[in-house]
């Protein structure tokens, strides 16, 4: 049994006097899909922000593949293999789908500005190699028809897909998805669920996602962590979590 890919322990995050996360811990095994659920304001996005390096927790550690990344800047974590998508789409709106994905590959490019600008030689070879990787992602997500379209002209569901593509372009080992299906219709949700499963199965990428749609969570996830008021109240398989009285209370009783 290999060690966990991601290990969060005793994590605490405060904004002034408000405790966003309190003494939180869980582990994500490589190759699994992990869902984080909980009511509004439970601290889900804060947790994702701590893992990706946007927020700095006051206490606790985050280990990625055995390495302590708690104090590491976001860009360094990206190089280690952590990528994410955002609740509100974060793409270069004025650039094409292709350009957005190529930017995602930038972290892997080795030739310098000069070689890239001169284009011929190593710069060209690298560009061709990177383009090929991006084309594979375009094929994977079936967005060939919009390859050269400017992102802001695309439908919302399609933009979400492009954002997933941009994260995939980083070749992540750990993919953090913040509400990948928010605002989608039933058909788009079904497509997105299939892409997430495919990313996990075909590429072996470990996935941590925040999602509200319980049907999706129960169908896709290997494990579910439930947060309420910044505390972990349950952690287990979808079945176990559903049976948990604390969870039922948080979702139904409190209302």
């Amino acid at each position, binding site marked *: 049994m290999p060690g966990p890919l991601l290990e969060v322990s005793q994590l605490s995050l405060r904004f002034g006097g408000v405790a966003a996360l309190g003494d939180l811990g869980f582990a994500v095994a490589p190759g699994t899909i992990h869902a984080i659920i909980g009511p509004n304001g439970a601290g889900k996005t804060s947790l994702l922000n701590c893992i990706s390096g946007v927020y700095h927790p006051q206490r606790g550690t985050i280990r990625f593949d055995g390495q302590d990344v708690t104090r590491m800047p976001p860009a360094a974590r990206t190089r280690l293999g952590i990528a994410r998508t955002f609740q509100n789409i974060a793409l270069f709106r004025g650039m094409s789908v292709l350009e957005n994905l190529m930017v995602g590959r930038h972290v892997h490019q080795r030739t310098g500005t000069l070689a890239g600008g001169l284009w011929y030689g190593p710069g060209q070879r690298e560009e061709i190699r990177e383009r090929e990787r991006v*084309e594979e992602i375009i094929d994977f997500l079936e967005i*060939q028809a919009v*390859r050269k379209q400017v992102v802001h002209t695309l439908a919302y569901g399609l933009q979400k897909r492009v954002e997933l593509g941009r994260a995939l372009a980083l070749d992540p080992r750990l993919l953090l998805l913040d509400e990948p299906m928010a605002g989608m219709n039933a058909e788009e949700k079904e497509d997105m669920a299939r892409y997430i499963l*495919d990313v996990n*199965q075909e590429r072996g990428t470990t996935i941590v996602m925040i999602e509200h749609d319980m049907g999706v969570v129960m169908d896709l996830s290997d494990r579910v962590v439930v947060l309420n008021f910044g505390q972990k109240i349950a952690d287990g398989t979808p079945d176990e979590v559903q049976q948990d009285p604390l969870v039922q209370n948080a979702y139904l009783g409190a209302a």
Partner: protein
Amino acid sequence: MDTFPKLLLRNAERFGGRAAMREKDLGIWRETSWAAYLDRVRQFSLGLVSLGLERGGKVAIIGDNRPEWIIAELAAQAAGAASVGIYQDSTLTEVGYVIDHCDAQFVVAEDQEQLDKILGMIEQLPKVKGVIYSDPRGLRRYRDPRLMSFAAIEELGRKQPAETFNRSVEQGRGEDLAMICYTSGTTGSPKGAMLSFDNLLTMAMSLHSVDERRATDEFVSFLPLAWIGEQMMSVATALAIGFTVNFPEEPETALHDIREIGPHVLFAPPRIWEGLNSQVQVKIMDTTPLKRFLFERLMSLGGFLADWFLYRPLKDRLGLSRLRSATTGGAALGPDVFKFFHTIGVPLKQIYGQTEISGISCIHRNDRIRFHTVGEPIPGTELKIGENGEILSRSPSVFIGYYKNAEATQAAMTEGFLRSGDAGYFEEGQLVVIDRIKDVLKLADGTTFSPQYIENRLKFSPYVKEAVIVGKDRPYLVALVCIDQGIAGKFAEKAKISYTTYTDLASKPEVYDLIQGEVDKVNQTLPAAARIRKFVLLYKELDADDEELTRTRKVRRVFVEERYKPIIAALYGDQRSIDVDATIKFQDGKTARVKASLAVRSMEAA
């Protein structure tokens, strides 16, 4: 050279390294030479035989247009078996019906989407020995002993002696069964039309003799390969002539890929031509007044000035610069669209035919193109009008019969002629098709009239996607209209009307007013008794998945009238609106519920 596999052998020898097929993959056009095409067919064929494919057997194929589709077809035929294409958007039950009815021993499916349909029915398909997929994505956890990859079959075939393949091809005869084409028809369950190599190859050559194709031509294959029309072009003609067949990256990129290829030959249903035309019209609507003025002047001016400054650049933008043979078929195309293409120098021709005659019986001739006719019989085809006004045809391309359905075969023939079920007449040697015979209406004054004629007039309006006229044995005519969401949506945008869904858009009074104007225009051209008195805008588009259209998008009148019975009843009553509570069925068998209130619009001044 009387079979497809023999032609493939000839072409591999004659053309060798030249491109037989091209497929866009990962953004790049990738070629398969004639020699490589033959290699892959040989391997796949030998692989299937080693797994037990027999002469006279059947191989069912389902998927988008890709080289593997055609390779599987030729491989089956080389082994003395026949291919059976299945429309890729068929539902679970349709797929199961065809595979079982045609006695397929093997099924070749493109990907997970298609495989799920087959595996969902596999308990009811005991005759199937193997299910073969070409795209392994998402199949990691599939466990069925009958499941095999395309590459694994090819690998199996590589180990067999090539001699076996050549001998098997030599055994083939022109009169052998080449394929079974299932036609859903506008009524009842699908029937399998059996076509021989002779049927298909005489058709390809007859068509070629009046509408020339060359070995150096480029062709883009994007219509369903299960359809006889696409088989005629991408397989029969491509093999007989030796031109290059190009497969788009995805169905949605077809128009873009056409532009990249710049085909010499293009065969497309009206919706594609209408799509190209409306692309131009929409751009012109959005441009500056000066450019619009110039466009309109040059369009009506003609001459070399217009040719150099407008027509040629326009054709280039659409990817039609090299187009020599342009045909449309399957449904009527509006005269305005026809005129547009002829003006810019695209010699668009109408063709007419049916699956049972290997696709085509009539085509326009170069110098005699009338927009409302379907042209003249192709060489070798004898056409006449039967006593009841039915179009009858006879040619060497008339099919062998329906598979396992002698009764239907007999009903399809009369005195050696093939029935079409269409009413028509000749006008100076050119055929005019009126409508399906059983749909032709008798009006109060005794004259016959065609609902399809009126429907087509309505559909020529860019805002109308689909229209169904009802009126047989009724006091007056009414119409069920489906709006075109794209263009009606653009209208709503300009008029600052907000809407959410198709159902919502179709319920807007302003949209009703718009369509009323269009209906009124059509009514002006009709005799008083044949005018549309009332119409509704349907809350959803007609869909083949709901059995309202055939897979080639023809309206299945009986189903539509049955399904919308309450709406039609309301149209003949004095209700002002109808409450609808319906379920919509999706391709994967799931359903959704729709609740709406439809307004009934009367055409009389109230």
